[in-house]
């Protein structure tokens, strides 16, 4: 089976500054992969290259079977993206957001209407179709953004710090949606600097100063570093002298 993502010595330089330094890794199909690093470690730059938004300086990468240099537009059509900061239009209603994104993804009207019904029912949001997104609770927003990000059944969905700020039950409901999508074969790529989100991933990589400093299952990393939590692993990697 071809991996969902392969990166081989993928590099991005801005002038003299190397933001991403020869990163090499693979993400399997249906895997939940955590992509971790401190602020400024190069996560966003790496993710932008994988999303087809930024051209690498050197190295190779394929996403959903498409090459990041030659097939960037195809990549964009085969991935989903959700960020905690921005995903939905606050001044549009729930229905309008679903219809807007359905349209962007090129889904037929019938399919959009079907999903609107299914989505609001599965999220327990019946009766809120005409409510402005800014008026619904944060937990609903996050679940709705995720559902919308995978409306077009992408092969890979990229989640950028998805679960900050919600209560622990809502957060777990969100992770259950992710597990469900992954169990149906969708690949989930999570970037975050919150280490407790990392604990939920199948495997995680940790970026430090542009390179990948560690890559394994959370359990193996905790064993390797003799750490109680991913937070401890992370602190050991990023503050080795303390």
């Amino acid at each position: 089976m071809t991996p969902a993502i392969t990166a081989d010595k993928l590099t991005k330089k801005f002038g003299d500054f190397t933001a991403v330094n020869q990163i090499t890794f693979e993400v399997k199909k249906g895997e939940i992969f955590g992509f971790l690093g401190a602020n400024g470690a190069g996560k966003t730059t790496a993710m932008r290259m994988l999303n087809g938004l930024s051209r690498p300086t050197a190295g190779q990468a394929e996403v959903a079977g498409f090459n990041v240099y030659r097939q960037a537009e195809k990549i964009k059509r085969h991935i989903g993206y959700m960020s905690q900061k921005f995903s939905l239009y606050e001044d549009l209603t729930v229905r309008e957001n679903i219809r807007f994104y359905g349209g962007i993804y090129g889904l037929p009207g019938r399919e959009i209407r079907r999903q609107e019904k299914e989505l609001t029912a599965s999220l327990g949001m019946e009766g809120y179709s005409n409510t402005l997104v800014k008026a619904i609770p944060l937990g609903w927003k996050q679940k709705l953004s995720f559902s919308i990000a995978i409306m077009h059944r992408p092969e890979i969905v990229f989640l950028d710090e998805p679960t900050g700020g919600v209560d622990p039950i809502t957060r777990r409901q969100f992770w259950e949606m992710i597990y469900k999508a992954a169990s149906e074969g969708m690949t989930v790529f999570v970037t975050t600097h919150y280490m407790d989100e990392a604990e939920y991933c199948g495997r995680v990589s940790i970026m430090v100063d542009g390179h990948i400093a560690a890559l394994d299952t959370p359990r193996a990393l905790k064993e390797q570093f003799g750490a109680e939590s991913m937070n401890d692993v992370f602190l050991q990697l990023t503050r080795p002298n303390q």
Partner: protein
Amino acid sequence: MSTNAIKVESASKRYGKGVVALDKVSFEVGQGELFGLIGPDGAGKTTLIRILATLLLADEGYAEVNGWEVRKDYRKIRRHIGYMPGRFSLYQDLSVEENLHFFATIFGTSIEENYDLIRDIYVQLEPFRKRKAGKLSGGMKQKLALSCALIHKPAVLLLDEPTTGVDAVSRQEFWEMLRKLKEKGIAILVSTPYMDEASLCERVALIQKGHILSIDEPKKIVSAFDKPLFAVRTNDMYRLIQDLRAFESTHSAFPFGENVHLALKNPIWPEAIQAYLAGKGHTDIEIHPAQATIEDAFMELMGQEEEVNQ
């Protein structure tokens, strides 16, 4: 007689018609105590801190800071608290040094006079002292905001989600700074949506939907979780959650990182769980007794709250 650093009695606040931000909230923070307000977005943390900072009036109830009542003595309170709002609120176009100088002057003091208090924090900022505040990294902005909140040597610090949006390293450094400030006798009320930060406080209030679920030492909140708890994992996480919820002895089942935390209605042997899961076709089954965490406790309290409301 020593007064509490903070005292809140039955404070309520509504916005508009429907939204109840705070519902009869009461708690106290002792002098020199490091007290955490732990809860998700929308729990009422910011409303509560703004009431104590005298930026907002409660609809009902009583609140005082350092013995001063928030309505009558708001001027005194403002002079003696350090307040760090959730959004970065310093002057982006002023340099690090200019911001600090500005706040010192406003409070009729100087950087030199109270330098002792901020030295540990400010030395990390010193290399950037000519840089505009807007150009600092998240962690550095947070350190500058804390320095500015401390420059007049406040008796009480009110910090609204200081660690939101900063990475694990900066978070750890920030909590180290808070511990040092606490040792200098400053009372600190700090809010956070990150449950794992509860253990860094002396006492915490868990807050949800404007209502305090529990107030205690973090250890005691966790030890009050009295259900038998197991960490369970198998080859199929998604199905595991569903199957455990359908199990007759299950009180609750929630994903916890690589495991599912299974709380039982009453004690049963792990072998019974093992047999049930094997019967459902799971493989690579691992079942271990688990220690409850603050999140287990929070979710249990949320569940109890809902039962009461129904």
